[in-house]
């Protein structure tokens, strides 16, 4: 399992043999979560079709700008995380730490905007029992933001480990990165589905 890091410290990542980054176990968690969210997506479209009009009218009440900003925030945080892992492999711990901090800030920003969005909705009297659309909106984005929060915890863990990390420890960071990228990619689909598809 450490073979990848061992090779990485001497060879550029692009030329590596077939190795799964990080721990296999994380990928099982990621695949499992993606299957569940895949189900979430399909279920949403199915039930949306029964009340398409209601869903479209309710969707119009969402703040698309916040949604786009959130998408860009997570995308950018993933970019930082990829480069952080690259930095760990090259033994550049200070750079990795900065990048992890930036990724964390983006993730925290996402949560902040979510909080703003939810507060806005509550003030307008829209809650998860208002109608079916808002049930999906709050439940799905809520479960997702829970994943973001867990991801932020993972990033904190990585920032804690970075100071003493050696290139051979890259798999730990790769595992954490894998989870964070999953959080990003789930939102990549959640945003258009809830905010854009009509």
């Amino acid at each position, binding site marked *: 399992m450490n073979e990848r890091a061992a090779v990485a410290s001497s060879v550029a990542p692009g030329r590596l043999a077939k190795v799964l980054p990080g721990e296999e176990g994380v990928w099982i968690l990621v*695949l499992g979560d993606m299957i569940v969210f895949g189900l979430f997506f399909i279920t949403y479209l199915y039930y949306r079709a029964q009340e398409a009009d209601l869903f479209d009218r309710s969707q119009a009440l969402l703040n698309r700008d916040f949604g786009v900003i959130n998408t860009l925030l997570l995308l950018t945080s993933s970019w930082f995380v990829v480069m952080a892992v690259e930095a760990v492999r090259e033994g550049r711990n200070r750079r990795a730490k900065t990048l992890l901090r930036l990724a964390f800030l983006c993730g925290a920003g996402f949560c902040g905007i979510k909080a703003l969005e939810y507060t806005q909705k509550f003030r307008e009297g829209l809650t998860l029992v208002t109608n079916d659309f808002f049930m999906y909106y709050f439940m799905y984005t809520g479960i997702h933001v829970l994943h973001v929060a867990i991801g932020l915890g993972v990033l904190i863990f990585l920032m804690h480990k970075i100071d003493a990390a050696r290139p051979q420890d890259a798999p730990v960071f790769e595992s954490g990165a894998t989870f964070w990228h999953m959080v990003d990619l789930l939102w990549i689909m959640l945003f258009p589905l809830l905010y854009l598809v009509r």
Partner: protein
Amino acid sequence: MEWLIRSKATPIWALLFAATCMSWALGTCRAARSGVSLELASIAVMLIAMIKIRFVLIHFMELKHAPWIWRGLFEAWVACVSIALVTTYLLI
């Protein structure tokens, strides 16, 4: 800071950023659009999202260099969910 530009992740990020903006434009543009275009825009937006997800899987998560079984599983997820979403949207 040149490492920022030299990183292989950067062009991918730029592409994803652009794709996000494109989706946003597609999904929100309302001017003089007929009902058919709306459906097409929705499908396009979902498929663009799937392509973005695939980019994250293959490049950010490095499935490009992973054993075929793992890459296969995730490619299968992308394919199955894409088909299921478009089918559900169109048929139901």
